[in-house]
């Protein structure tokens, strides 16, 4: 079985050569992932493994989105927080008229 990430040589459409400034929320997520590594809680290899383990539909949501999902999975696996807590917090933020990437 070949993983969702193992795509070298597979057919794909024409290059869409685009770039944009990184979204503040994804920059924040990168910083969180970096902080987790620098504190010794996680490794880049664990992070990659969590990315590769995502279901195809989730993996395909986009680079930043799959990183978010993988970070969440890894933190839950490590017992550092649960997805339920994250979802609950998101709901609270929404109820409070949440900002985002502050």
């Amino acid at each position, binding site marked *: *079985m*070949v993983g969702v990430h*193992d795509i*070298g*040589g597979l057919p794909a459409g024409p290059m869409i050569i685009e770039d944009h400034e990184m979204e503040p929320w994804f920059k924040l997520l990168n910083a969180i992932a970096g902080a987790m590594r620098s504190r010794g809680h996680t*490794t880049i*290899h*664990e992070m*990659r*493994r969590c990315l*590769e383990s995502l279901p195809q539909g989730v993996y395909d949501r986009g680079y930043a989105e799959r990183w978010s999902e993988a970070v969440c999975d890894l933190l839950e696996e*490590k017992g550092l927080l649960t997805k339920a807590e994250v979802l609950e917090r998101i709901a609270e933020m929404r109820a409070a008229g949440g900002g985002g990437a502050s």
Partner: protein
Amino acid sequence: MTGEPLTDPIFKTGDQVRIHDSNPPGHRRTPDYIKGKIGVIERYCGAFVNPEESAYGFDGLPKKHLYRVRFDQTHIWDKYDGNASDTLDLEMYEHWLRPINAAAPEPRKAIVQ
């Protein structure tokens, strides 16, 4: 515990190697397209934590010898459109490399036509 490899590097620059052709479950850094292919050691890179272990929270020690392996593009792909001297380089941990003279099965055939 230094974590250094238990043995010296088996291969040297210029040696021909075949990439182990297998799909074990787990976190692997060997892309599917290169499995079973034959290349040449371009350089020895040093020894690094084994990502296949580190990915599951283990220390990944002892470290694994890592090499850069160069392949002819026309060898990798059936219908490669380019120059016969076009190449592709990847990094391979030693346990994925087989000496070319060792008995090895033919590269796996595609299941579908």
